[in-house]
């Protein structure tokens, strides 16, 4: 059974069957990654362009590796090295790339909705690798795969997303995906970083980190983007770390075996203490490995649809 859409623009509205299919396929590729020879010929002859209009190292490497493991021809396009800076319009840039006959485009862009815009101006299959503060579907898929791998299920679990929810594409994709898969989702962070209407998405809001630890099975802790505007939304890093940072003392105090996840890169001593970042509860590096497998699954399912 194929996926219901030839693009992956986000997890909003993606049916449960599609997510299940991606997660099951991921399992197969996860096994491939444990083999001595980690390459399969599945996408031989297909061309994938990684179109990155915003800086990214780990997501781009993860996609590139996934493409190479599937034997696709992978091309990297970064906005800084492109004609975008020479004044060419976005639409013309895309048309030019498409004219080189590409099958799939993996797009990262600072503006929300750009992947959908791409579907209107080009014929390739589009995978959203993060658009503004909108969605980052492959991150949420790898988070869900990692939860399932560790805890055996998603349905019925309580998952809390911690941090700057308002400026996070990871949060929104996780909210959509987890709710579809039957988890109970809450968010925790300073009120200035919680979108005003988030409750209407079916999400509970918690302002007390201890309560978030007590109430949940999983904490997905987001990076505080110190380089971005985030700094205007809370008084100081010290105050954030004191009131919302996850520390070993906090975990012990609440006496709880809880799964700690983080999409990386971590600000050690801010959202996670050193001890927690390296501790027994976290699966941060497994998430990174699973990321390659999830992206292989998505590329494979979309790349073999026609």
């Amino acid at each position, binding site marked *: 059974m194929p996926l219901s859409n030839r693009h992956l623009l986000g997890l*909003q509205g993606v049916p449960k069957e599609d997510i299940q299919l991606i997660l099951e396929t991921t399992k197969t590729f996860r096994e491939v990654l444990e083999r001595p020879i980690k390459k399969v010929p599945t996408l031989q002859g297909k061309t994938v362009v990684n179109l990155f209009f915003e800086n990214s190292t780990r997501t781009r490497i993860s996609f590139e590796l996934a493409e190479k493991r599937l034997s696709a021809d992978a091309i990297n396009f970064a906005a800084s090295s492109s004609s975008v800076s020479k004044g060419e*319009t*976005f*639409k013309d840039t895309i048309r030019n790339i498409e004219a080189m006959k590409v099958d799939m485009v993996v797009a990262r*862009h*600072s*503006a*929300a*909705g*750009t992947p*959908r*815009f791409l579907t209107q*101006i080009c014929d390739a299959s589009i995978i959203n690798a993060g*658009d*503004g*503060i*909108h*969605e980052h579907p492959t991150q949420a898929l790898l988070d869900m795969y990692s939860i399932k791998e560790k805890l055996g299920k998603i349905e019925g679990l309580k998952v809390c997303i911690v941090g700057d929810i308002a400026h996070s*594409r990871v949060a*929104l994709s996780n909210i959509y995906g987890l709710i579809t898969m039957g988890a109970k989702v809450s968010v925790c962070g300073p009120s200035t970083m919680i*979108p*005003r*209407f*988030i409750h*209407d*998405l079916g999400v509970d809001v918690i302002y007390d980190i201890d309560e978030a630890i007590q109430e949940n099975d999983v904490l997905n802790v987001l990076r505080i983007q110190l380089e971005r505007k985030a700094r205007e939304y809370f008084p100081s890093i010290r105050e954030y770390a004191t009131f919302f940072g996850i520390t070993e003392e906090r975990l012990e105090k609440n006496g709880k075996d809880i799964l700690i996840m983080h999409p990386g890169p971590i600000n050690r001593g801010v959202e996670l203490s050193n001890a927690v970042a390296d501790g027994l509860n976290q699966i941060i590096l497994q998430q990174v490995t699973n990321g390659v497998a999830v992206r292989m699954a998505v590329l494979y399912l979309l790349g073999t649809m026609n």
Partner: protein
Amino acid sequence: MKVILKNVNILNPEQKLKETKTNILLSDGKIVKIGELTAEDTKGEKKEFDLTGKYVVPGFFDMHVHLREPGREDEETVITGCQSAANGGFTGLACMPNTEPAIDSAEVVSLIKKQAKDQLTDVFIIGAATVGRKGEIISPMAELKESGVVGFSDDGVAIKTAAILRRVMEYSGMYNLPIIEHCEDETLAGGAMNEGLNSTKLGLPPIPSVAEDLIVSRDILMAEYTHSKIHIAHISTKKSVEMVRQAKKSGIKISAEVTPHHFTLTDDFIKTYDTNYKMNPPLRTKSDVDEVISGLRDGTIDCIASDHAPHSAEEKEVEFEFAPNGIIGLETQIGVALTELYHKKILSLEQVIEKMAINPRKILNIPVPKIQPGELANLTILDLDEVWTVDFDSFKSKSQNSPFNKRLLTGRASGVINKNQMYFEGEFFNI
């Protein structure tokens, strides 16, 4: 030349005039006779139009138009804007000063006037309230008034500070000219759509409704304090409508306009990131639209204006956050108003005429055209029941950025008459 408009209905609430199935005789652009016409009346060179079932009303007036000249003649010019107005059923318009350079000197005013001289459409000019619309120094208001400006605005942004607003209001108060305010607190501005569940779902930076409400409240208080006239442009929020209603009750000299998109569309339309739904103020929610409609009904909102904002396709066909704000509206406005307000029985035809022909002129101290012998003919001909589909390829505007393209509407203007010219069913001719 004589023009005979046969079998028309005439309506002008300003004159308490209402006639059915009558005839109008024009000669050299003037109204000569209304009623039964004799053989003597119709002798000589003439054009006859059988307008059975149609209405002849005072020429419609759009008080919020961006003509883009000088500066962005690739998007619109004074001439194409005037033709767009005629095609949309308007005999007059007021153009906003956010051109490049801004309309903050008599030279720019005279340039626009020169371009508009031979057009059917009357072009009135809103001058910048501050030099370069920068909110720092009051514009030369006396000079601008001398050159014919009818109001002041920094449209595109609100007048920057309360201190400058006070001076602007006091100074313009000497000449009894209104300040037209784009109400948006700049420290809360900068988003791409209305703040709500939709902005959260779409991941677009939000503009909270309180950004509008704060400036509306500031301006109401300042208008009261300085006894000046304030006009709220493109009102869009529930709270702002409530505040204007209250201010009118307390006797403050305030008026307000709303655009067709703000009484028709909501932020639900942005789902596909179509930049033709991106404008400022942004599309709001259903409860805002409902309140705007009550405001139209109870008279809190005095007039309907398009905020006609042409943008080139290259500029609009980009990522939503990077697209410029604004849509065109001159050629869809009457159709949308008749469909959504008149046919849905929210406003009577008299009220539509008040809001689109009479009140905008009164706010800007422009005489309202009369339909009586001896007067220059300044008329719009309405067909209330024509069903038509909007097609932006038929627009006279240079730009096509309209969210109403392909929409089915009931009612439109069949033509206009003004300044010894007539535009009827797609053609201009001298009369």
